[in-house]
């Protein structure tokens, strides 16, 4: 079969910084081609180069042949004619990919209108048909809705409908499901698979998740720092993994830090029937506005030194619960006691109680004040001590050492550190007062697989050494399996299942947990055994 699209020696530099260094690959008709790599490896830039939608200051070279035509030689007008008709793209952020002030039907129909493929009335008919095809039938989801009225998954479906309106030969999907929940991700991937099969489209799937690629792609290419280091059909690549980087990537994603159980029987944090409600901006003029119950009678106990997991999809109430546990927001029912003492909201929480519990956030770039030096950042919790420590600098240096960072890090600003290093600093800040409990709110979700593995090892080591307990909140089952003793599964504000992690993840009792586990993409066990055998 002739290659439907082929890149030969594709190189790219932005403002002089090299991004791609001679990338070559080919994609045949009706084939799903997986491009996998960590952030900064240049996979998104490859996609944008194919579409020739590069940002300002980008200089690209090499050849891109679409059915024999070299796109690099085409003028802007010809490229506009190709985009949407011959090749299309969907991007990672469904929340911002759609025009907020235009109805979904109009946006899908626009692809047809712009290419003069149909008059407006006809274009709308096709648009409705395409929306139905991607799982948004007009009777279920009225076509004249606006993007803000749809969920993340539904918006991604609209984006797909827009892309396939003119049945292009190639669909490029750049991290299409990274921002979605596990269950929604499974549906979208199934939809893409169906489209490739039925419409004979070529699909280029870009992701950082090996499991997703394993389940979807016919052939896979692994990228590192702007180069394809290994390429081949999926099964042979996974079972042989000749290139060391591919192997390291695989190892890191399945990494299980060894942990010594340090859980003790003595309860540390006890939550009884905790309820938290939000006032909805109601439509009725008088009478109580309807209330949305984010946390609905949640009860659980964290024992000293225990590593408790909390799993649930976005919108299930995890972060609301976290804010309640930290005493940042008042609770509308039930009680939370830390070491026997009751936690009350915000202002009047005594310092000695707050000293026993700290938190690490998800986004390493947002959890630090850019204007503060690292030393002062880590020392901020000292505010909770009645008398400031005699030698704060030493305490900070010790905390930094605990997380494997040099003492001189204290004199530098946060923007001089990588994502992984920043999370280490966050952990140092949480541990500087030697708390009993640390809440890790999606602490590793934003990190690349290799760095995530190092942080998990660090956490396991710290728990063993300092005997502290933590509540590990995540939407990623693999991470939870790696680091927690017991796990709670949360859905729509309620704990639907609780138990020892291994038991819950291998023999789930509650149907929701079952769908959760089934939806999470797994690298086939046979391939893993073949690799180790």
């Amino acid at each position, binding site marked *: 079969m002739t290659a439907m699209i082929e890149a030969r020696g594709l190189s790219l530099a932005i403002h002089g910084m090299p991004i791609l260094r001679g990338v070559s690959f080919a994609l045949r008709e009706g084939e799903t081609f997986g491009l996998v790599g960590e952030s900064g490896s240049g996979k998104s830039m490859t996609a944008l180069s194919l579409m020739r939608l590069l940002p300002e200051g980008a200089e690209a070279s090499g050849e891109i042949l679409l059915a024999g035509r070299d796109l690099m030689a085409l003028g802007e007008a010809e490229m506009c004619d190709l985009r949407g008709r011959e090749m299309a793209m969907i991007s990672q952020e469904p929340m911002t990919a759609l025009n907020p002030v235009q109805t979904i039907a109009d946006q899908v129909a626009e692809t047809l209108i712009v290419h003069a493929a149909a008059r407006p009335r006809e274009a709308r008919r096709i648009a409705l048909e395409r929306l139905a095809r991607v799982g948004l039938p007009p009777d279920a989801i009225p076509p004249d809705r606006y993007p803000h009225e749809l969920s993340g998954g539904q918006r991604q479906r609209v984006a797909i409908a827009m892309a396939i309106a003119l049945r292009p030969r190639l669909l490029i999907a750049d991290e299409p499901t990274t921002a979605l929940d596990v269950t929604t991700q499974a549906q979208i991937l199934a939809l893409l698979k169906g489209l490739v099969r039925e419409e004979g489209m070529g699909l280029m799937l870009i992701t950082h998740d090996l499991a997703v690629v394993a389940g979807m792609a016919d052939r896979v290419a692994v990228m590192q720092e702007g180069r394809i280091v290994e390429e081949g059909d999926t099964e042979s690549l996974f079972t042989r993994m000749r290139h060391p980087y591919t192997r390291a990537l695989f190892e890191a994603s399945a990494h299980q830090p060894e942990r010594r159980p340090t859980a003790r029987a003595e309860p540390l944090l006890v939550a009884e029937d905790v309820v938290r409600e939000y006032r909805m901006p109601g439509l009725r003029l008088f009478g109580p506005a309807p209330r949305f119950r984010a946390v609905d009678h949640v009860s659980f106990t964290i024992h000293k030194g225990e590593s408790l997991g909390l799993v649930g999809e976005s919108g299930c109430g995890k972060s609301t619960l976290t804010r309640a546990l*930290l005493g940042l927001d008042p609770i509308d029912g039930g009680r939370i006691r830390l070491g026997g003492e009751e936690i009350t909201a915000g202002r009047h929480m005594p310092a000695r109680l707050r000293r026993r519990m700290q938190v690490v*956030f*998800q986004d390493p770039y*947002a*959890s630090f004040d850019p204007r503060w030096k690292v030393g002062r950042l880590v020392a*901020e919790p000292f505010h909770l001590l009645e008398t400031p420590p005699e030698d704060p600098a030493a305490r900070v240096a010790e905390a930094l050492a605990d997380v494997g960072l040099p003492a001189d890090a204290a004199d530098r600003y946060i923007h001089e550190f990588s994502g992984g290093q920043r999370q280490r600093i966050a952990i140092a800040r949480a541990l500087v007062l030697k708390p009993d409990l640390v809440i890790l709110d999606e602490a590793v979700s934003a990190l690349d697989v290799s760095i995530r593995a190092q942080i998990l090892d660090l956490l396991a080591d710290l728990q063993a050494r300092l005997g502290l307990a933590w509540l590990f909140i995540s939407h990623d089952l693999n991470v939870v399996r790696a680091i927690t003793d017991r796990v709670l599964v949360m859905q729509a504000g309620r704990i639907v299942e609780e138990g020892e992690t291994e038991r819950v993840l291998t023999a789930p009792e509650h149907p929701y947990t079952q769908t959760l586990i089934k939806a999470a993409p797994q690298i086939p066990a046979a391939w893993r055994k073949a690799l180790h055998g």
Partner: protein
Amino acid sequence: MRARLPLQLLIGAAIFAAFALAALVSFLWVPHDVTALNIAAKLAPPSREYPLGTDHFGRDMLSMLMVGARTSIAVAILAVGIGMLAGVPLGLWAAARRGSLIDEIIMRGNDLVFAFPSLVIAILITAVFGPSATNAIIAIGIFNIPVFARVSRGAALSLWTRDFIMAARVAGKRAFRISLEHILPNIANVLIVQGTIQFSLGILAEAGLSYVGLGAQPPTPSWGRMLAEAQTMIYTAPRLAILPGLAIVLAVLGLNLMGDGLRDLLDPRLRRARQ
């Protein structure tokens, strides 16, 4: 886009520095005493002795412009000071207590002051309490307060949702300390940019007030009044009306260019692109 940034800032800073320098120098030395009238030498064309000629009272235009710069800059900068000292704390307080009664009161108060026609009220204040530079400062300053309150509240609100603020709350710090230690330093650049804009608007407002005779009183020279007095002689001595007008335009232009340059320099979006 980035290459152009320092140019805008440099040009603006250079122009404004010239005026600031002229104003400072005028404290120590001025070619001719602006209070001494010399009717005999009135409307003299530019000469070695009077580089920019003399006005209808025979005073040296260059000295008048230099001392006039002092008035304009002093009035505008103090008005910005009033705006910042009163406006920023209000904005921070409203943001710290967003959604509460305080927030509502401060915002409603802001809208109320915004609803008042600033020029009309400025004229009322200066006319009522006697035209003088101090009254002009107060009149212009009052209308800077809501601007800074609104700008600082807006910037602070977007910060309050950031994780590092929650981290500070978990470290036991309360709204007041957080506003001081975290919020203020991080909205400083927005305030600096807004400051330069209000500074340039202040110069225009002072010129407007003095033009209708309500700014600084004689014998203190002010650009606006020089403009008003020179207007009727625009035919016989256009120089008298052109020079003060030009001085106002250049000073405001310099400040606005500086403001633009600062905004690009400090704009996080651009800064991240540069890292």
